């Protein structure tokens, strides 16, 4: 029978996934069906037995929670990418801190309560001691994707997005935020217990974590995975 893999992926990772999938499909003679959404929604769905074979979240908390609730197959939870927070700016000469300090207009960010890039942006602002000061200027998008739309449509000129989005769009009017300003955005995956093709799912996970894909991801705006995560390479629950 032909192999179909159902993958639930955080919306922000979808473009990158689509970039690297053809090679995987060619090698494993397996068709991958992508369902994307916000990590929160996907988490809810998987918790209620959505028929996915692999879950690529944009954060670490939700896979952890799922694992705790017994929703994960064995120890399939792993980090597969490191999100990088970027600041979209209007072609400016000054530095990040100065610009944020003096910016009189709205600043866009993803909703810190529900989106990983949002909570990273909050941490960054807190580190710069601007969180309280800029409260009234903060426009929250539902997720990183919408934050990008708000900026891209010209409705705001300054805001936090994912570096991967800027890369994918071929834009260069952004700065990467210094990594010390926020907790690393560890994007984790897991294989849900209801997965019908855990083996193929695991090989996709392995493929994503392979050096070849990771190198590709760095070009797409993702960071370098910390080594302790790479050491869990191949840890399949089967």
């Amino acid at each position, binding site marked *: 029978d032909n192999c179909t893999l159902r993958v639930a992926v955080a919306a922000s990772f979808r473009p990158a996934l689509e970039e690297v999938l053809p090679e995987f499909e060619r090698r494993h003679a397996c068709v991958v069906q992508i369902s*994307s*959404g916000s990590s929160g929604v996907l988490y809810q769905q998987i918790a209620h*037995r959505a028929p996915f074979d692999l879950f690529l979240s944009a954060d670490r908390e939700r896979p952890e929670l799922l694992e705790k609730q017994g929703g994960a197959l064995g120890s399939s939870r792993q980090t597969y990418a490191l999100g990088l927070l970027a600041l979209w700016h209007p072609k400016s000469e000054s530095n990040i801190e100065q610009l944020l300090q003096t910016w009189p207009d709205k600043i866009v960010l993803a909703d810190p309560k529900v989106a990983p890039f949002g909570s990273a942006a909050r941490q960054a602002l807190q580190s710069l001691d601007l969180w309280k000061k800029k409260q009234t200027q903060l426009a929250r998008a539902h997720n990183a994707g919408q934050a990008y739309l708000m900026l891209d449509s010209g409705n705001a000129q300054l805001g936090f997005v994912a570096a991967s989005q800027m890369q994918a769009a071929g834009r260069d009017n952004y700065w990467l935020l210094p990594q010390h300003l926020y907790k690393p955005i560890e994007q984790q995956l897991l294989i849900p217990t209801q997965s019908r093709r855990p083996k193929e799912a695991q090989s996709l996970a392995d493929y994503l974590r392979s050096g070849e894909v990771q190198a590709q991801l760095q070009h797409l705006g993702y960071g370098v995975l910390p080594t302790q995560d790479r050491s869990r390479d191949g840890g399949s629950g089967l």
Partner: protein
Amino acid sequence: MNIAAADWQALWLTLKLAGLTTLLLFIIGVPLAWKLSQWQSRWRHGIEVLITLPLVLPPTVLGFYLLLLFSPNYAPGQWLSQLFDGPLVFSFTGLVFASVIYSLPFMVQPLLAAFNANGQRLTQAAAALGIPPWAALLKVLLPASRAAIVSACALTFAHTLGEFGVVLMIGGAIPGETQVVSIALYQHVEAMEYGAAHRLALMLMGITTVLLLAARWLGHRLAPRGSNNEQAKPVVGVLG
């Protein structure tokens, strides 16, 4: 226009969903609206408001509660899954079920308004000729409410087409099964594929427009010939 195969699939799925939901809601909504319009109790207002409530909850939240309802983790979900011979969540059946709840007010409200307006008079006239209530509904009230029916079905259909939050929550965007056009469209937007998004949106609106116009035309054709012809014409070129 250059539309991807997956988008065509989503479009077709959406039309199927909207068509099926409209049909089911018609079958459910007509008797419901009719019973309500005949019910003289004060509780009737309560029920009417209750039917409006699916509108009030944000679709995603409604979807969340449906997710809880459908979940095989709890009793109702298990029962429903037995009833429908398979889990409702992340299945086309589940989408239909959810859409029926979600679009209920759109079918019932216009029908209720029409039945309230001339239902009593006509049902009385029918009963006064010995026509039993059900026959009166089917053979007297429905033909007289043709315009309201077209309007109700059009609203329901359109609303189901645009359904997003609920589907997002309980559908799981599985291509060919639950990936409807609203989700595909949103994914295009999120993936910054604006061209594809614009094309799909245009397509969706185009198809809907044609379908709605056709429904109206049909509703018009079904009316006994001659009606509405000889009404007062708007006055042309009046001076002074």
